[in-house]
């Protein structure tokens, strides 16, 4: 997928000014957080579940090579062909090779974020193979020719009217505002595609080393169709998705749906191993797994290692106030929100996504909900350090931080600088005590005033008062400035 993460600020400006998008974000954004809170509220001790899930994911990563090989050995034994791809492009070529060898003409897909990384659909399309996305959200976006804006609710940025307009255009059906009717229309439209496809392409939520299985989690049932009906199934997934055992999967599934959609359990969890059972009359004749690196292995053992624990629940973006205001497309690549602010620079290169690690107030709303306890704010701060160390921040920013740090290490000079700063701000302030424009800090004053300092510094005033206290032997000298607040408060009560 082509990235626009380098032009984040421009993306943000466009999204903040997009009234329709803003209305959609406001209307649909908060639901996930509420539903997660309710789901967690139904659990005895959700923190214990998070602990277990985090331990499991952390432990797998420390010996990822072992677990990948264990998975490969068992999957192979069960008749699954395991392929390794260093890049997204390589994964596409492998998949295309499988499709060509099997004479595939029609592909149905369930959701796969890794295939978004690799831009698979375009490659298949160019090779003359018809691809149909079957997750409802992904299907809508395929019609709209847009990337997903959320990892579990890809079309959350679209209203029913926009969906209806797309359906009208592509299905030739009348417009409707009835959401169940729109879902029914997609069902009717996609059912024949499921039945006619030669190949199903899915993601893989998890790989189970113990059994060589791929675990797929969906609500719509499309994941089951994609992996049951066509004669070839290919799962395409990241190398970090492996879990040692089925018990580990069980433990992780206690946190994944609750964190994602606020469900106690996702409708369908399919654990798929090998090809069609002997004597059975459904299931694919060929089963493939493509293990995709695409930048992941570089993170192992490094400062961003913990980001690979991610189980793609989307809770971080559902709780991120930045994401909630700008939507997913502004981030400019596959993964939005806090995890995207880490993975995008990590996978594409820091220089391609300079603003993303800065796109957070470090409010930690993501960290407290992450089911595998990824220290997201800490990782964003680490990337900021890397930007600084690699000289990727603007020179004036680097210089001003150095200068500021130097001053802060010299208290007398810091006090002088503070006094001067106060003077400048008071001089710039209007009669209302607000600075309306602050050269160099336009980022603030474009949308907000800057309340001007009250007078001299606290420490200067304190020194004076301390002297007065000592002179009077009385400890109430501090009363006056405080009382101003009370006076102001009392006045505002007056009619």
């Amino acid at each position, binding site marked *: 997928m082509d990235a626009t993460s380098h032009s984040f*600020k421009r993306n*943000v400006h466009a999204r903040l000014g997009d009234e329709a998008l803003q209305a959609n974000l406001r209307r649909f954004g908060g639901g996930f957080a509420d539903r997660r809170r309710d789901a967690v509220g139904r659990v005895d001790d959700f923190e214990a579940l998070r602990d277990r899930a985090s331990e499991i994911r952390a432990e797998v990563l420390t010996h990822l090579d072992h677990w990948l090989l264990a998975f490969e050995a068992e999957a192979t034994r069960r008749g699954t062909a395991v392929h390794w791809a260093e890049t997204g492009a390589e994964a596409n070529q492998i998949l295309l090779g499988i499709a060509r060898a099997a004479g595939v003409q029609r592909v149905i897909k369930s959701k796969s974020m890794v295939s978004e990384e690799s831009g698979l659909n375009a490659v298949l399309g160019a090779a003359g193979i018809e691809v149909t996305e079957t997750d409802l959200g992904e299907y809508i976006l395929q019609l709209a020719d847009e990337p997903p804006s959320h990892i579990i609710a890809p079309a959350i940025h679209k209203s029913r009217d926009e969906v209806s307009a797309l359906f009208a255009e592509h299905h030739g059906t009348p417009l409707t505002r009835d959401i169940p009717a729109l879902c029914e229309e997609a069902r009717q439209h996609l059912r024949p595609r499921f039945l006619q496809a030669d190949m199903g392409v899915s993601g893989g939520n998890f790989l189970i080393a113990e059994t060589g299985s791929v675990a797929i989690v969906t609500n719509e049932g499309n994941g089951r169709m994609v992996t049951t009906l066509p004669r070839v199934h290919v799962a395409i997934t990241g190398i970090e998705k492996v879990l040692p055992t089925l018990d580990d999967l069980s433990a992780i599934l206690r946190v994944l749906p609750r964190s994602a959609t606020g469900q106690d359990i996702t409708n369908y969890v399919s654990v798929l191993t090998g090809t069609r059972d002997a004597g059975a009359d459904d299931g694919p004749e060929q089963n493939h797994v493509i293990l995709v690196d695409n930048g992941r292995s570089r993170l192992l053992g490094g400062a961003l290692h913990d980001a690979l624990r991610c189980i793609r629940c989307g809770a971080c973006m559902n709780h991120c*106030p930045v994401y909630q*205001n700008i939507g997913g497309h502004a981030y400019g690549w596959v993964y939005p929100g806090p995890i995207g602010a880490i993975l995008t620079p990590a996978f594409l290169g820091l220089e391609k996504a300079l603003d993303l690690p*800065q796109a957070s*107030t*470090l*409010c930690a*709303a993501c960290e407290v909900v992450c089911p595998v306890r990824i220290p997201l704010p800490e990782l964003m*701060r680490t990337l*900021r*350090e*890397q930007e600084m160390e690699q000289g990727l*921040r603007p020179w004036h*920013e680097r210089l001003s*931080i150095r200068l*500021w740090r130097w001053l*802060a*290490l010299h*208290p*007398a000079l810091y006090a002088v600088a*503070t006094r001067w*700063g106060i003077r400048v701000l008071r001089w710039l302030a209007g*009669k209302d005590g*607000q600075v*309306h424009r602050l050269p160099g*800090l*336009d*980022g*603030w004053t*474009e*949308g*907000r*005033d*800057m*309340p001007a*300092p*009250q*007078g001299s*510094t*606290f*420490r200067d*005033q*304190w020194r004076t008062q301390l002297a007065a206290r000592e002179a009077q032997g009385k400890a109430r000298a*501090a*009363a*006056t*400035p*405080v*009382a*101003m*607040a*009370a*006076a*102001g*408060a*009392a*006045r*505002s*009560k007056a009619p």
Partner: protein
Amino acid sequence: MRIGFFVTCLVDAVRPRIGFASIQLLEAAGCTVEVPAAQTCCGQPGFNSGDRASGTRLAQVFLEQFESFDAVVAPSGSCVAMIRDYPGLFADQPALAERLQRLVSRTHELLDFLTHHAPQPLPAGALPLRATYHDSCSGLRNLGIKHQPRQLLATCDGVDLCEMRDAEICCGFGGSFSVKLGEIATRMADNKCNHALATQPDAILGGDLGCLLNIEGRLRRRGDQRTQVLHVAEVLAAGQLAASGELPAPGQFVGMPVTTKD
């Protein structure tokens, strides 16, 4: 109890009366307060911008300035959260990390200190004020400050605290974020103002001046010159004075910036 008061850069420069209010409250809670003169900054602005040395170097300054006190108190959850992170920055210097750990474990945010660690509870205050409280992120999520301001405000007779929607959602300050990505910060501040104003408050309260400046800055730009934006300490201190009959007559004090246009 001998307290070293860490005033924090913003309070020192922009709103000293929060510092005075804090000291008044600490004294009322039975503490002896000192203000080390050579204190500067906790290092957070640089540290969160990617300059690790801002954290490590200023951690050592903090240690020198405050190690001798029984406890350290600051009127900011965000600065205290930064300070609490100091020991982790010295994984390669265990002795220093250990010394820092001892100091940071007795370093408290003001409202938390007054609620849980002060020698005696605050005397009851009185102040007629309809207010709503914004939970600042660092205090809330790093220090667990949630009930403390509410409990303290409840001791102030006449303070009518109305909870706003999404009180726990970030106001958009985020230090350098508020300048680097000002457009998003402004939108977030706008949301915060909308939710706060929906409670029809006289004052929007908080425990971190960064957030308060962000919220006030947006309010004033929107043309609201009436709603005050105050630190909880300011309200509590005023309440204490009012309860003891020392509240000066309205209008006596010139220089309340937010009300000069009335």
